[in-house]
């Protein structure tokens, strides 16, 4: 199940870009939203689709919510498949933009 290719929209690319650019490999939804300027209504369905496609995996932040004083964060990480697919998608977009520039210049 769930191994179907997610739709490659500009928002999806932005989310994947946030993962490739982030220094800690695991980031929370709020950090992704901050990095991509995406609204929660757009971001979470994308994260869901990427996770279903096994491009992302997630786990709970370590620590007790009572000790942390807030609910735990869900941390997302790009999988090997996700990294490979993201790189391929970026390459494709770069080639496409390069081709367009070549045609118009």
């Amino acid at each position: 199940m769930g191994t179907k290719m997610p739709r490659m929209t500009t928002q999806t690319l932005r989310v994947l870009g946030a993962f490739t650019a982030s220094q800690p490999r695991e980031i929370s939804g709020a950090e992704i939203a901050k990095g991509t300027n995406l609204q929660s209504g757009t971001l979470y369905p994308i994260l869901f689709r990427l996770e279903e496609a096994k491009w992302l995996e997630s786990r709970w932040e370590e620590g007790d919510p009572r000790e942390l004083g807030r609910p735990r964060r869900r941390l997302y990480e790009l999988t090997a498949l996700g990294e490979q697919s993201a790189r391929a998608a970026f390459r494709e977009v770069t080639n496409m933009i390069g081709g367009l520039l070549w045609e118009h210049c």
Partner: protein
Amino acid sequence: MGALLIAIGIASAVSSQVLADEFKAWAPWLIKKFVAFAIRRLPEMHRERYEEEWTCFVAEIPGDIGKVLAAVGLGCAGIKIAFELNKNKQALTTNGSKNKKSSLVVRIIIFNMAAVCLLDAVLVYGLRHFCQIENGYRIQQKLSPIIVPNLVLCSVLFFAALAIFAFFFSWLDNRARGKGPSDGIISTDFKPHEH
């Protein structure tokens, strides 16, 4: 004029302060309601996880207005994710495709039968009308015994076939439901909530 402007200024300052305080007081309730709405859209197995995740997400957004807007966005996210899950479920269950196919077949059959009946009725009535004008009473008399039984037969056949197909497909549907996968979500490898 000056006094009026000062009065308006004071009144608007006081009212905006009151409104801001009201909003501040109501914001947590609103956020809770929106997050609960978003969570209710999701299937049971995903609710616990997203409730904690989204509560944390909203808490990390600065400002009350930002928090409320994020919670509204989560409502949309809940709807979209539920739609996505439903789509996956329909695509992966045999029930979904079977029902889809069977409903298509039923529609085609009903449409064809209705078209045949309509065509038949039009032809018969058209012929009768034509005969009345062209040849008068004699030919109409010859045709009239054909018209009524033909239409009655068509209608009886149509409703009989409709009933047979309705029974047949409800039986098929019941059988498929009995043997098919459960109504749960198909994604079995989704990470459950860890406590």
